[in-house]
């Protein structure tokens, strides 16, 4: 695997970089994870030149992991955290690790693995257990065993309990809260008729 990748610097304006199809579910899920730091606000409209430099440097030491599909076309499947802020702040030069061939690469596994490793430490305290439950439920069952390893359990509550060391009650409460948010409500029309 070491021989299959290269560290490169690319210009976003000259390349078409987008999410790999197999990594899209993990990418979408990552968008819903609430972290302590709301970098969204920090890098919003009031970003300074220092912020831009901060993002650029962080991205350089946390490169985007891509596979080249054809000339100028990259599909990323891992390492997207700082990349998205580069887009937001208009940073054109980014660092990528480019895989030359897709042989032997499970893109889906890499994407979920990235998500698990990225968010172990920084989920919001108030909602972290519920978010953990959501995350573990979202991981495809075929990958769960590999990714969770010793913490693996069929029940997401137990898996969360093992990973975080929380009590059984807390994990159950988090699972309940998670389930509530997904409850389907009546249609608008039904509500109008009431």
């Amino acid at each position, binding site marked *: 695997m070491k021989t299959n990748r290269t560290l490169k610097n690319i210009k976003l304006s000259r390349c078409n970089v987008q*999410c790999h199809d197999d990594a*899209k579910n993990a*990418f*979408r899920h990552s*968008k819903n994870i609430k972290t302590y730091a709301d970098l969204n606000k920090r890098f919003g409209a009031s970003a300074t030149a220092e912020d831009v430099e901060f993002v650029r440097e962080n991205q350089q030491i946390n490169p985007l992991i891509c596979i080249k599909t054809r000339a100028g076309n990259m599909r990323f499947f891992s390492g997207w955290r700082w990349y*998205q802020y580069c887009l937001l702040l208009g940073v054109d030069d980014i660092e990528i690790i480019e895989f030359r061939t897709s042989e032997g690469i499970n893109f889906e596994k890499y994407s979920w693995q990235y998500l698990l490793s990225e968010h172990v430490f920084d989920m919001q305290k108030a909602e972290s257990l519920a978010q953990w439950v959501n995350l573990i439920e979202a991981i495809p069952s075929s990958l769960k065993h590999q990714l969770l390893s010793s913490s693996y359990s069929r029940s997401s509550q137990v898996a969360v309990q093992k990973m975080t060391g929380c009590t059984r009650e807390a994990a159950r409460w988090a699972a309940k809260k998670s389930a509530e948010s997904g409850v389907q409500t009546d249609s608008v*029309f039904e*509500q109008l*008729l009431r």
Partner: protein
Amino acid sequence: MSITYKVRQLFDDGYSFNQRKLIESHCASLSYFMSDNELFNFLFTDDAFTELRNKIKEEDAKLLTRSDLYDSVKATKQIEKLPFYSFVTSISKVSTDDFSVAKTLQLNVLVAAYELKKLVGYEDYIARALDATRIIFTTNKYQSVLGLLKSHETYTGKYFIEIRDQCNLAPHHLTALASLFGKYSAKLPSINKRTRVVQPKAVTPDKKPNYTNKESVVPFEDDEPKYTEILATEDIVTSNNGDHLEKITDEKTATCYLEFSLIAPDEVEKSARLQAQMANSIAANIERREKSLTTEFRFLTQREVKILVEECMRNIDDPHFGLLLLSLITGRTISEFLGNEVVMTKAEKGKLSDHFVIRYKPSLPEYEIIEKARTLLNQPIGEVLLILPQCMNSVISNIIRLNLAIDSTKQAISDCISLMNKRHCTRFTLAKISSVMSFYLIKAGADAAEIALMKGSAVEQHASCYYYQVPVQKLIDLHQGFLLYLDSNRKYDLSDFRKKTDLTVGSALQLQEDTAKKLFTVLYKKLLKKRQMGWENIELLHNYFTVYTLFILNLSTGHRPVKHPYHTIDSFDLESSTVFLADKESRSNSAGRVLKLPSLAKEQLSHYLSHLRHIHHYFVQLSSQDGKYITDILEGVLPLFSFIQDNQFQTITPKLLDDFCVDLLPIPLNWNRHFIRTWLRDNNVKPGSVDAFMGHVNGDGDPFSRYSGVSMKDLDEVARFLNQLLSKNLEIKPFSSVEGLRL
């Protein structure tokens, strides 16, 4: 520019080299023999005469006296072919005594012709003057005219007319000279001939030419006064820019007239004056239209109405006068009554048992709506009621009983009218009498739909009737007001109905105000929930957000449910809060209208645009195609509103929206038009403004046509009313997706 070039430029081609040289010599000689004080108040623009004097040789000047030149032209019958040459050489036929005057005349004709030649449209004047001069010079009996001319006189049109009146000789020729000098002596013309360069350059439909005032394309000589004229940037008047040119001309007439009056000869002034008159007449026409509400010639005067009512009431037992009064107070024609098209009934019991009533149920469309949804609508329950005064009960009964024959009764009624007209010097006609109610209602602020419903005629032809649910009480009040107007002294108690009713008539697609309010509340909560659910639900959030924004905009503009509603972002001007709507697909863009946006709608639209920018950041990471789609929306390349279905953007179509609304509000998509049309009239917004807002043509014509009295200020008022409806009555809150969705 040399004098030689000028002379060559002067008159027609067809001369041989020698002849042209001769003409040039003649012109030069004329100027040579002249002294400064022999020239009246003209000046060649570039000291041409000084130049000539310096160049001319004395022997050349003698050419003037060679009579054989003219003779040879005459002998070869070339006078008609070479009019200018003949004019120049004809001076040799003048007797020695008159030679000095003839020189002056010829030179002044030459100069006047030279200057007028620069303008278009004076060719005939010049040709006639040249001929006249030649004929005077060469005809013995006319040469005495030269004796009346003075060498040092300033030649004007008036001067030659005086000469003509004095001598009774060569009147036509003197008139020709008078015309030439009349045109010239007004002032030295300084307008260059318009030389348009025709270029086969088509105007593209989307690129409107710029018609702002610009300098003439004709270059001016340095010492000539410059002036500004209105010319289109594009030289060719095509069907694309014709309207705009016409419009600009319309607007600029007064200015043109002012400019021309200072510098232009009579003909041009006259033309400009005519244009100004036309503009004035158009302005007067507009004013008349405005005043037509009260001074329409078919409208009987207050005195006439009073006389008519008195006459009818005095003879109330006579069915003919009864019919006349019925026609007056119901706005129906006599023929409608006699042909039994109007049914007058009297209930045996209930609120209306004391009065004869004309009942009328307008034939308006029914809508296919699921039963559950019908409970959310206000159904029209009732019919139009025209309540006739109690004092007419007996005469109405008589009319019904007698079943009068149409022709003989109409004849008898016409006789009654003639008698009244003779007796009171009035101008009653059947048509005028039946029109009184309509004019009163317009004056009272009723709109086209209300009048059509009350008159019961051609309801289907009034688009506004389809969208308006009118309380029957409003129609009754309007009618009672009219009866009070007829009986202002309350002598006959015509306005005698005091009871109230809750009935309604008109549109069958009236969403209840509470339901509309609830709809937006529920949608808002739904959006909040979808926003909490984050990016995994972005498609649903986007779709609901789009519908929420569309509903608010639709309630703010009365937009019809069409493919690609509001077209692109370019339809909106958020600076001036206006939107251009072209939602009548069958009538092309020319049927579009510009409306003001309520501030709440503008705010929601801004949120929608921010939402698009926000999700662009997300979608561009997933797929560059989706990212480009959103960029194109924001740049006005693609339609503004779209749904996301199965990971694909789809522009809004009525079918797509209808499918989405099955779980939302399963009623026809144009419910918004019915809702706001009725709401605006219930809140007494001016009828003209409402029609303009809805894009309806009313009795005064298309609201945005040239002579329309509706202005942007009226629409501003409508926007303010609608903002009140949205923010206070329906309690709609603008929704933003950006605050809740973290990137």
